[in-house]
């Protein structure tokens, strides 16, 4: 009888410890972890990945250096966020007009399985002509995302399909490839356009 009591107490004690640990994990590393501040992309010169642009040309971070750059992640099977981001960006570029000539604008897919070079080519053709679509082997996409500190995950949906959760921010770099700032998803145009202009003006200052 005593042995049973001891066993029950011991199990209850263990359960309490396990619960405490679980709650701790939840708050520190788990879904309730505080926002990781200071998580910003490394400079383009510190990145290393090989992808293909939508015309089949081999590309990497080094080809972006020398011009101001705008990069964002997404996938073409995305019904809401990605077309919205692409059309927002197209609108910003239209607003900036000739100022954006010579700016790199790159859309990197997080879903290379479905986003082949051909799929990217067709998709970007509907948006501003400055937008380039990059895809490639999954591990290279992962290396790219890591450099930009972008996150993505595959999520199954009803009927055997899948969708991708992903970082929807737009990253801006100056002509030296240094990270300048990011534009959050759905940021108003009156804030977004000046941010792009700042990344562009860095170039003008450097040139004069």
């Amino acid at each position, binding site marked *: 009888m005593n042995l049973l009591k001891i066993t029950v107490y011991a199990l209850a004690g263990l359960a309490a410890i396990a619960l405490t640990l679980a709650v701790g994990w939840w708050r520190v590393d788990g879904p309730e972890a505080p926002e990781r501040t200071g998580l910003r992309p490394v400079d383009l010169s510190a990145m290393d990945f090989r992808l293909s642009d939508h015309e089949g040309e081999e590309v990497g971070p080094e080809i972006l250096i020398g011009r101001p750059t705008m990069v964002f992640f997404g996938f073409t099977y995305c019904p*809401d966020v990605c077309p919205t981001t692409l059309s*927002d960006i197209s609108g910003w570029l239209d607003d900036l007009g000739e100022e954006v000539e010579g700016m790199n604008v790159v859309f990197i897919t997080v879903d290379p399985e479905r986003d082949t070079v051909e799929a990217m080519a067709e998709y970007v053709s509907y948006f501003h002509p400055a937008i380039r679509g990059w895809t490639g082997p999954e591990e290279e996409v992962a290396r790219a995302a890591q450099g930009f500190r972008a996150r993505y995950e595959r999520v199954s949906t009803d009927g055997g399909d899948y969708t991708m959760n992903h970082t929807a921010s737009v990253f801006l770099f100056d002509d030296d490839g240094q990270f300048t700032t990011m534009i959050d*998803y759905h940021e108003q145009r009156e804030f977004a356009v000046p941010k792009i202009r700042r990344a562009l003006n860095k170039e003008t200052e450097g040139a004069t």
Partner: protein
Amino acid sequence: MKTVVYGLMAALMFALSATMPAIAGSEDVVVEDAWARASIGVNRPGAAYMTIRNTGDEAVTLTGIRTDLAIMSDIHQTSTNAEGVSSMAPAGEIEIAPGDAVSLEPGGLHAMLMRLQRPMAEGESFSLTLDFSDGGEIVVEVSILGIAARGPDG
């Protein structure tokens, strides 16, 4: 002038009678600015947007949507967390209080159209039926705009 007004009223009456069944609650729902982006083929899901306004005195609950354009359709909610990661999830039933409106707009709620039966072609339109908890339904004609459209005006 009078003729114009009567003409407008007649058109309005016709529009109302055509889109609203005579059932308490959902009969007072008005849908405005329904639009969608064109699709590339049929493999990718589509999304439609609109404003659903409850002009009546009692709350209404939108329980689902359907269209012959897609095998599966559902209202989804896009959300972006503190780290900037966007995700989508079914929004469930949506209650609209009297006098309130719910906006389905890019980056928020949208009518998610899965398994398209035919491509969504720019310049065309499709019917979408909204089902309400009181048994009422509203059929909305959704205009298909370009892939790069940002709102109901293109």
